[in-house]
């Protein structure tokens, strides 16, 4: 191998820690992504779909986090608005 000098252990330790940290980050990120995709696929297999999943082209650009469960509103068409809907007090 190449000679890394008297402080070789520090250099290797630095690269080693970096490799472990990045590997950990990659595993957690990709793992989470796979998990969510699997969960979504499982739910869709059970027949529970998003309202707009049926319409492939006319997608409404709403924040997913503010969607209410679709059981309450069977087949309503939502207006396309980029703003989140919940706003009780004017800011």
């Amino acid at each position, binding site marked *: 191998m190449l000679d890394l000098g008297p402080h070789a252990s*520090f250099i290797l330790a630095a*690269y080693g820690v970096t490799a472990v*940290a990045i590997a950990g980050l990659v595993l957690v990120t990709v793992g*989470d992504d796979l998990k*969510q995709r699997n*969960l*979504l696929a499982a739910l869709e297999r059970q027949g529970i779909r998003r309202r707009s999943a049926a319409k492939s082209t006319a997608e409404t*650009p709403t924040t997913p*986090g503010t969607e209410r*469960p679709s059981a309450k509103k069977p087949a309503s068409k939502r207006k396309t608005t980029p703003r989140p809907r919940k706003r009780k007090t004017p800011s």
Partner: protein
Amino acid sequence: MISLANPTRFLSLVGAVVPWLTAVVVILLGTGLYLSFFVAPPDYQQGETVRIMFIHVPAAWLALFGYTLIAIAALGTLIWRHPLADVAAKTAAPIGATFTFIALVTGSLWGKPMWGTYWVWDARLTSVLVLFLLYLGLIALWQAIEEPGRAGRAAAILALVGGVNVPIIKFSVDWWNTLHQPASVFRPDGPTIDPSLLTPLFVMAAAFTALFVLLHLIAMRAEILRRRVRALQQTQVARAAMAEA
């Protein structure tokens, strides 16, 4: 930005970009590591340990890049109410925190042979440590608030307050550091950076940046899907309740 506001369109963009971005990251990392170990000459002052600079400095750059990204996303959440802004902010925080951690640890491991101690309250290290705490605060706030909308806005406010403070913190730490004369004269990046050292540095920086963007996109996709899953699970529960009623 406006065209990317549609989550579904964003998801398909991510799906298209991830494969070739992964290839870019692998190529850049491979090239960077090769240059760092086999091409870059040892520094006349620091010897071989200058190779630590090739991860330490890019990691520090990415730490700041991450926080800047979060601050801009915070503006997106609070001012323009961009639908994906809080997703961008939430997912960037752990990635930025990891790079900050890498900067701190590699800086410490660089410091031991250079300054004789693992930790030095050098102005730069201290500022990066405080930046790490800011990241931890953001992550903790995201975890603590359950409703995503409220969490996004609170984290955005915190990010902006922290962002205003980052230059002040940097200035105060520099001030503090000049009061207590540093023990050694060495600066972490050497007297001047020779071009033969600059190339590996920039390649590694490009590699880290590409890696950040790649992981960020994947994490954003995961977060969007997580919210959809949660919404659908609520549907599932509601339907079961209605079926029983």
